[in-house]
């Protein structure tokens, strides 16, 4: 075997390791330098490097014909832990890295009144490691570990402002619900390991098909019963993390007291990752509704569509009645998570294209809205919409961003979310689920009313109390402008983006043959 040493192939492993390593280094750096500035520069640099690294991984994934496999310690797939990165996961990795980079820039000014920021940045880097690790991994137990890294960082980030009672209360709710969810996923792993005798995703996919994989051979027990139980538990666990109704209740509470940077990343990346994991199980491992586990998958797909519709309706109805700006935008996350779930639940490639495109568009627009809300709340010092009355006139840049983000999320034509909703409607139409288009339109109209409520309050109303004369700091305005431009550009370029970026990613997700073959080639070297 002629193996050339190519350093670039180690980049996939470097992404989470760099994040975790610098997360642990940060408290030490602060201990030595005792300087807030050093920590901020450090974190912005590291998240910038992460962005470059994930982009390299994206480039590798889009130029290669099969998924990239990174074997830790050169242990081949069924024996060791591997990263298996296809275009779908590489795309989500870059999305998360962009969110983290902007959030790190934004935090430098947003948290100027808080103390203990070194811990905040430590958790932020841990959160990044968890999210990217979840996206890249090709091993279901490594997925559990990375998801726990993500979750523990997220619980602690919610409680970062521990002097605010709402933050601690929201964090407690999130932590209890979230750790139940991860334990449920652990039990699902128990069932999978007990019947398949393996933890590797490619190996599982091969065993679902009845193929023999090197080292582990064929499945040990009754695959169909175990798949059914495990899939039910997995969907339960990750619908909690993805905030799908009826498992959504923790999300608005967690977002109220949390720093808005957390809310932006969580709704842009953590929710997406949970839905991505469900999609990976349904479409790559169990091979969709035409695969060997068709009855189970079919039932889960119906459940996803139902939960998605419920999320869209319940989220948009509750959104209108909110008085707290963070909570209002949090309900919007539930609505959009519902759209993505509907897209994944349709089960056709077009539905998944809609879901993936909406994941990206929603992440961009939602980060924009949260950053705008953060700008207002930072100046005024209150989250109540009545207290924010009139603040929009003093901060024109933020208000422009807010209007763009709100219109984008509501689905106004030239903007990005309109395009993904259009594809979603088309997918529903092709799958003979036309009545559900009414649900999407209904939820969009209701959420438009809720967004107009924010815009009316911050821009059109006269101030209720005297407002401070502060403007947004450039570092807090740049991310807003950048995201607003992205919203418009993604909307206008959608006819180019969808065939070049989204469709190859979805093809990779559905191409189980390639996914198994890439791992099997490496595994067969072990037997040689």
């Amino acid at each position: 075997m002629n193996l050339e040493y190519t350093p670039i192939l180690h980049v996939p492993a470097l992404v989470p390791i760099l994040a975790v390593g610098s997360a642990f280094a940060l408290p030490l750096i602060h201990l030595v330098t005792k300087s807030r500035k050093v920590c901020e520069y450090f974190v912005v640099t590291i998240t910038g490097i992460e962005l470059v690294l994930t982009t390299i991984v994206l480039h590798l994934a889009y130029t290669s014909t099969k998924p990239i496999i990174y074997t830790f310690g050169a242990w081949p797939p069924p024996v060791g832990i591997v990263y298996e990165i296809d275009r779908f996961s590489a795309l989500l990795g870059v999305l998360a890295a962009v969110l983290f980079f902007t959030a790190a820039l934004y935090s430098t000014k947003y948290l100027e009144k808080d103390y203990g920021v070194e811990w905040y940045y430590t958790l932020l880097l841990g959160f990044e490691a968890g999210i990217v690790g979840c996206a890249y991994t090709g091993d279901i137990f490594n997925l559990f570990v990375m998801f726990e890294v993500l979750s523990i960082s997220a619980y602690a980030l919610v409680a970062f402002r521990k002097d605010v009672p709402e933050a601690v209360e929201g964090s407690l709710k999130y932590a209890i619900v979230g750790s139940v969810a991860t334990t449920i996923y652990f039990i699902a792993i128990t069932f999978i390991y007990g019947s398949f005798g393996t933890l590797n995703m490619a190996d599982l996919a091969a065993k679902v098909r009845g193929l023999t994989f090197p080292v582990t051979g064929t499945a040990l027990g009754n695959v169909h019963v175990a798949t059914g139980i495990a899939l039910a538990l997995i969907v339960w666990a990750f619908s909690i993390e993805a905030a799908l109704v009826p498992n959504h209740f923790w999300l608005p509470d967690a977002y109220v007291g949390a720093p808005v940077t957390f809310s932006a990343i969580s709704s842009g990346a953590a929710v997406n990752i949970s839905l991505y994991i469900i999609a990976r199980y349904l479409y790559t491992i169990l091979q969709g509704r035409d695969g060997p586990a068709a009855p189970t998958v079919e039932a889960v797909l119906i459940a996803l569509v139902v939960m998605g519709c419920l999320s869209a309706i319940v989220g948009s109805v509750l959104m209108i009645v909110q008085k707290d700006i963070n909570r209002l935008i949090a309900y919007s996350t539930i609505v959009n998570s519902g759209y993505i779930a509907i897209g994944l639940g349709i089960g056709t490639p077009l539905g998944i294209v809609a879901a993936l495109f909406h994941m990206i568009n929603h992440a961009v627009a939602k980060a924009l809205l949260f950053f705008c809300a953060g700008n207002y709340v930072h100046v005024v010092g209150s989250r109540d919409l009545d207290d924010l009355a009139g603040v929009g006139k003093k901060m024109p840049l933020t208000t422009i961003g807010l209007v763009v983000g709100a219109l984008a999320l509501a689905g106004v034509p030239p903007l990005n979310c309109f395009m993904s909703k259009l594809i979603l409607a088309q997918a529903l139409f092709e799958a003979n689920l036309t009545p559900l288009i009414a649900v999407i339109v209904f939820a969009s109209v209701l959420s438009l009313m809720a967004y107009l409520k924010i815009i009316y309050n911050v821009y059109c109303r006269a101030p209720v109390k005297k407002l401070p004369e502060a403007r947004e700091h450039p570092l807090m305005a740049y991310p807003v402008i950048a995201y607003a431009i992205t919203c418009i550009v993604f909307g206008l370029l959608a006819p180019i983006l969808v065939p070049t970026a989204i469709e190859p990613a979805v093809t990779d997700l559905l191409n189980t043959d390639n996914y198994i073959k890439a791992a099997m080639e490496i595994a067969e070297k072990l037997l040689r």
Partner: protein
Amino acid sequence: MSMLEFTLLMYCYAALIAVLAISLYGLVRRPNILKKIICLSIFGDTANTLIIFLGFRTRNPIPPIVPTLTPTKSLMMEFTRRAVDPVPQCLVLTAIVINMAVLMFLIFLAIQIYRHYGTLDVRKVARLRG
């Protein structure tokens, strides 16, 4: 496997699943935060026990160590039949560490809740509604 062994094994599985159900019930119904945390801990530990059970061999289990450096085929057959599966133990080791981290975090949160609200009753800790 004899009838007795099978019955015992099934009894253990049933007991574990019952404990899972009871701890979930306690987690949902008990108003006290500390009791919720205790239930969560029981829930996690039961899941760990469940996966340890999977790796167990009922008849004459041996540790998963090959006693020689040059194993023969018959020795390896005997080994795979009797040796305890080490993978679930590794999984549990990881899960225990993670559970500990979550548990510590939850206990710190409970302390902080008590400082803010003066109670650990979730019915009174309710500033967030809707």
